[in-house]
């Protein structure tokens, strides 16, 4: 299934917010990956990797693309030291888990993680730790400690959405806010 189809299903404004323009031919790469990894962001090549052998559903693809675009967005708007600064890595993973829909109630239930009250935050912590362990040689305790250190700050950083997009309506309103932004700042 051509990549353009997948890409067109993601909220279009996410592309606009990456003020470095994203081109599907340059910034996306479909590859076969090890294990159960769904995707990744390669800062060295400025590419989002999509694991074509591990993504089988449109909804999953949407989520992976959103997740990796958040990493790309962080890479473009901040000096993220992906390789040496674990706090930076943890922060971007917290944001990606928080804002991509990774931790939606439905997704968690499908993983047999049944939780309700503030469960989203627990899921974000856990998935951030998992993501760090998948790419760095650190212990579970170390990864947990780093996530805990930066969680409060990074969980609150909802850029570029201005809110946690839990569904299409949230995304629509966030996009509307984005389109109004010039008028917004002029009028404050």
């Amino acid at each position, binding site marked *: 299934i051509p990549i353009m189809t997948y890409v067109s299903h993601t909220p279009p404004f996410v592309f606009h917010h990456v003020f470095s323009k994203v081109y599907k031919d340059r910034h996306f790469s479909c590859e076969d990956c090890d294990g159960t990894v769904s995707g990744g962001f390669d800062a060295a090549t*400025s590419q989002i990797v999509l694991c074509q052998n591990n993504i089988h559903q449109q909804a999953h693809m949407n989520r992976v693309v959103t997740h990796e675009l958040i990493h790309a967005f962080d890479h473009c708007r901040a*000096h993220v030291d992906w390789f040496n600064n674990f706090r930076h890595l943890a922060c971007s993973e917290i944001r990606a888990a928080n804002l991509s829909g990774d931790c939606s109630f439905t997704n968690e239930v499908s993983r047999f993680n049944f939780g*309700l009250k503030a469960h989203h935050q627990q899921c974000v912590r856990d998935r951030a730790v998992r993501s760090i362990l998948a790419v760095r040689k650190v212990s579970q305790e170390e990864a947990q400690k780093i996530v805990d250190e930066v969680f409060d*700050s990074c969980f609150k950083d909802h850029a570029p959405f201005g809110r946690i997009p*839990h569904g299409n309506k949230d995304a629509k309103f966030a996009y*509307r806010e984005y389109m109004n932004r010039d008028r917004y700042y002029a009028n404050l």
Partner: protein
Amino acid sequence: MEQLAERAWRPHQACEDYLSEFRHCRSFRNHFHHYYTYGTAPSCQQWKEDYHNCRKWESHKLAEAKDALQKSERRRLEEQKNFTPVWKLRQAPPGDWHRPLD
């Protein structure tokens, strides 16, 4: 002249947009998501006030309505920035973002 400019001020979005935010905030779906995320119920009253102030400004050009609306929006913006970033923001995108791949 200044008064003209004052009266020419428009809220950054249509008043109906505030109302739609209020309705969305109050929806069952949003309550569910808010509880799932924060363990509490969302507070939606501010959207309603903003809607009323927006309408007051658009209809009667009441200065208090404009001030209240601006104050509310500034507070909303501050809330969004209410954290200490772990990284430094860039002034320009990374230089190698479009570098051709080998």
